[in-house]
């Protein structure tokens, strides 16, 4: 039985409210909150980035697993905000954890689904007997052009999953749906991404998320009723709620993982933070459907079954506890933290 042996998460403590961003741009905060379903978003500290978030999330995962870091045989970091254009984040994480030098490593990039791609690779490597444990991280400090609609939700955070045998949540099956869809992109040397506006919904998010979920269910004979929880990528709070309904899930299935309302969209960290929040409360034998989405475009779907091992597993502090520990900043401090202006 192979699956998630441990997990950890990290959310920077600073938040900015939608009202504060709307105030600066002279927009209607109520309308924006209604449209996105997001009230506030996380903001990294001046000395935080994808590498530091990845290390913090991974340290929590290693501590909870109670394993020797040298037993980790692979480190994959999925992000669209790697600190360097060329020079891996995975080696910084590996060194900070004390993994040694005996490990497979790579940075992955597939917009917001690079973290789940890392989980699939670790799962395969464990299954093939190449490694004992693999570490997959999804983390981002996502950037949006000041004044762009994306600015209201682009947030920071990450989660780390250790994949191995004797798991707290078995990966029963995984399936991906992929196509060449230019809904969102960022060219080399450009500081901010561009997107296809309304084009991002139907042909991008919904097509891939729904196709991946249905593909997984068809190929591995699951029905909606087989799942106790569902977690989808959360670019805003509207899309995952609609996707859930399209698949026949109720709000109770997705509420626990819907962290986007309170922290925004942490890109590669988004669906994985939702999964971590869900594993925080899941009971043995409950089943979780996880579907990520990455622009460009693709979705990775997973059927996860929680095992008895979760009963002895340390789940404190929970993701929602971390969400509640917050310090509000105004737009000027936010800009400084996001390094949009030079000191």
């Amino acid at each position, binding site marked *: 039985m192979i699956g998630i042996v441990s997990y950890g998460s990290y959310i920077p403590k600073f938040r900015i409210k939608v009202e504060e961003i709307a105030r600066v741009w002279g927009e209607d905060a109520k309308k924006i909150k209604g449209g996105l379903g997001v009230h506030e978003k996380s903001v990294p500290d001046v000395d935080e*980035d994808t590498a530091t978030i990845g290390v913090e999330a991974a340290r929590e995962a290693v501590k909870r697993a109670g394993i020797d870091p040298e037993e980790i045989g692979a480190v994959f970091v999925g992000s669209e905000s790697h600190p360097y254009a060329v020079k891996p984040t995975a080696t910084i994480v590996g060194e900070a954890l004390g993994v040694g030098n005996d490990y497979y490593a790579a940075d992955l990039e597939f917009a917001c689904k690079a973290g789940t791609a890392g989980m699939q690779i670790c799962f395969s490597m464990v299954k093939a007997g190449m490694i004992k444990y693999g570490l997959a991280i999804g983390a981002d400090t996502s950037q949006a052009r000041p004044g762009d609609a994306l600015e209201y939700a682009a947030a920071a955070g990450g989660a780390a999953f250790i994949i191995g045998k004797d798991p707290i949540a078995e990966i029963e099956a995984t399936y991906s749906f992929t196509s060449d869809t230019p809904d969102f992109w960022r060219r080399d040397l450009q500081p901010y991404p561009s997107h296809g506006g309304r084009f991002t919904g139907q042909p991008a998010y919904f097509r891939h998320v729904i196709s991946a979920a249905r593909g997984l269910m068809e190929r591995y004979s699951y029905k909606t009723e087989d799942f106790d929880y569902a977690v989808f990528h959360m670019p805003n709070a509207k899309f995952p709620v609609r996707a859930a309904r399209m698949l026949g899930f109720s709000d109770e299935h997705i509420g626990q993982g819907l962290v986007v309302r309170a922290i925004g969209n942490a890109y590669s960290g988004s669906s994985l933070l939702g999964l971590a929040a869900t594993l925080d409360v899941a009971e043995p034998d409950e089943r979780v459907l996880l579907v990520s989405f990455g622009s460009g475009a693709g979705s990775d779907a997973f059927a996860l079954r929680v095992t008895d091992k979760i009963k002895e597993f340390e789940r404190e502090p929970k993701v929602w506890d971390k969400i509640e520990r917050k310090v509000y900043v105004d737009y000027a401090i936010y800009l400084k933290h996001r390094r949009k202006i030079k000191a």
Partner: protein
Amino acid sequence: MVPRSWRKIRYRYDVRGSYCENCGNYHYPPRNFCPTCRRKGKLVETLFPEEGRVVSYTVVREKEPYIIALIELDNGARVLSQLSCEPGEVKIGMRVKKAFRRYGEDGEDGIIHYGTKFVPVD
């Protein structure tokens, strides 16, 4: 610049110090010679505790003020480290925990330096 910072990475990325099995003293940064036992010392590298308390501190008033604190870890070892919080938040005796943060960068096209800082325990 790169090779010198690279050699220190192991001790910066985490709080790894030395422990003398002969006299029971901890040192950070790690030593390869025990100042107490001299030739009788038996030093081993060890990972220090994650938490401690602020013994004293100073606010360095540069372009952006930052805090340097003397921290006593829960094994009794003392480390000098940057404290990542607002200058108004610091108090002698406050509990702090290690955090992996950016130290700085060698300009826009240079190396990014990472390492251990401390943050208040929430």
